[in-house]
């Protein structure tokens, strides 16, 4: 009992003295050491969590980071026999070649135009659609209309483009109407003039309904009391939509606009590639389809990788730029 007492008081005294003497830096070090110990202890007792994340980690390294490393072939004259490291370093040769090629301006502008027109035309439509759907008071009607408007989203891009080819063929149904009105059919799919319009309008047809979901949900969160109050103040329906519903969509609009504007040069190859015909190339050749053709069809890996890298760098710059613009407009609320 006595001994116990001594130990008790003794350790107490020592502790007090220690804290007293040691400057705060020392405590920090001790704490950090404790922290590392804690972390190791956590990792040891929860190794199972690391097993869980391992597959995703490995797949990311193999299929995302190794290709990022492989991007250095853009600065080399890659040949199979020499491998990535052994191939000759040529610096910015391939970039210069692309920038100076007569194709560059055409392809760059095609990509930009296709994407920018698509964004300008396509962005407002889901918002308008959502505002319109929001005015439907009968739940069943609303649900059925949504069901139909969302459906094209589930049709594959191959089938969509296939439908375009049969509908727009010189003997197809659309040209029947065109012939009646203009006297002769139009070769829509092989005319560079129509490529962008067809691409963008069919895209709107397919995705506008589906893209409205998020706006419909944002509108459902608007407090009905706001509408009642505005009504009492004498605001009519259009005024209420303009001053209550539309502002409620602003944050979602900002984020989606950043994402789409940031991705304006990242337009996918899948649909454009399928819609390409030998004759509409002057407008349908975009960076993504060009990368595919040069790289995988002609086997010019380095040149193609350089174009791809050029494109991703533009994408990152765009994303940062657009984000800072929206941040300013949105009083500090950007994407990141």
């Amino acid at each position, binding site marked *: 009992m006595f001994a116990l007492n001594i130990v008790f008081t003794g350790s107490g005294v020592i502790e007090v003295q220690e804290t007293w003497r040691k400057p705060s830096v020392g405590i920090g070090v001790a704490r950090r050491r404790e922290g590392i110990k804690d972390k190791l202890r956590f990792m040891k007792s929860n190794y199972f969590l690391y097993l869980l994340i391992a597959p995703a980690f490995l797949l990311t390294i193999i*299929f995302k980071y190794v290709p*990022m490393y492989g991007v250095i072939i853009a600065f080399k004259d890659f040949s199979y026999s020499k491998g990535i490291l052994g191939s000759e370093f040529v610096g910015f040769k391939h970039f210069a070649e692309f920038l100076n090629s007569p194709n560059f301006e055409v392809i760059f502008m095609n990509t930009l135009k296709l994407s920018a027109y698509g964004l300008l035309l396509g962005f407002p439509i889901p918002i308008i659609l959502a505002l*319109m759907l929001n005015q439907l008071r009968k739940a069943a009607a609303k649900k059925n209309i949504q069901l139909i408007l969302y459906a*094209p989203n589930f049709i594959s891009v191959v*089938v969509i483009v*296939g439908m375009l080819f049969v509908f727009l063929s010189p003997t197809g149904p659309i040209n029947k109407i065109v012939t009646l009105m203009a006297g002769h059919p139009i070769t829509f799919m092989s005319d560079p003039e129509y490529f962008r319009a067809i691409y963008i309008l069919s895209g709107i047809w397919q995705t506008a309904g589906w893209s409205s979901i998020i706006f419909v949900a944002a509108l459902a969160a608007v407090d009905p009391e706001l509408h009642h109050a505005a009504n009492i103040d004498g605001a009519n329906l259009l005024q209420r939509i303009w001053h209550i519903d539309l502002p409620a969509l602003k944050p979602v609009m900002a984020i989606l606009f950043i994402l789409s504007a940031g991705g304006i040069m990242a337009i996918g190859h899948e649909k454009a590639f399928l819609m390409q015909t030998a004759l509409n190339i002057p407008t349908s050749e975009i960076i993504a389809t060009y990368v595919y053709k040069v790289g995988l069809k002609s086997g010019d890996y380095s040149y193609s990788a350089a174009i791809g890298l050029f494109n991703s760098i533009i994408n990152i710059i765009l994303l940062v730029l657009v984000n800072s613009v929206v941040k300013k407009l949105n009083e500090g609320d950007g994407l990141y």
Partner: protein
Amino acid sequence: MNIKPTRLDRAVLAINLCLLVLAVLVVIIPLIYVVIASFMEPTALLNKGISLNLADYSVQGYKLILGNEAMLRGFVNAVYYSVAFTAVTVIVSLFAGYPLAVDKFVGKTFFMTLFIITMFFGGGLIPTFLVVKELGMLNTPWAIILPAAINVWNIILARTFFKGIPKELSEAAKVDGASELRIFLGIVLPLSKPIIFVLALYAFVGQWNSYFDAMIYLEDQKLYPLQLVLRSILIQNQVDPSMITDRTAMAEMKRLSEMIKYASIVISSLPLLVMYPFFQKYFEKGVMVGSLK
């Protein structure tokens, strides 16, 4: 207490309804046209357009499509790839999402940064292709399943969902002496059916409808999924030689090619279009969870 619409409001609502009906017609008329055209004799369709005369209708297009070996094989392959891809990507995403949702998980920032960087920057088409080639996965189903299986968006979705599960549940189990493995398999996963469903639906539909990976990674036509077979029929206008038995059949084939196209559009799109209304709730949920981040 409802807002009483003024006369102007009522006019606006009426116009609104008309425009929505118009939008519905714009969406649905092409689809209905395809279905009707798939049953019509091409010559009749060409000369008369859609007719009401029963003599102009036939199921010849469907007979040819359903008897086409490439089409059937494509269908089987598509089911195989979609199911395998869905299983792999859902498992990988769930497994990765769970540790990232654990508050004290050491290395959370490291892993998150590692994943998120890939959303903004990637090696691109050619370097990825070269990796797949080096791994000897060209012309095997692995090339379709593995590279696309890692999807950061899905990992974030799973993490967000796991974070929403009350911690008391797993803590109570821990007090009872359950291991992490048991907590994950016995408590967390059974509660995660909604997110599993959402992830699986998106993965399945995405894989079912995709053609590009298959086009660049697969050479053997026997491995082609449905969308690639469709591409050759619909866009490249190629008729499978196995459909043609003799000269007259070839002429017949040419004559029926429009019909075959319409029929193959219907057959390939039908499964998803019929299924989707039943799962609409989950698809919409996917959009919503995704937007929360």
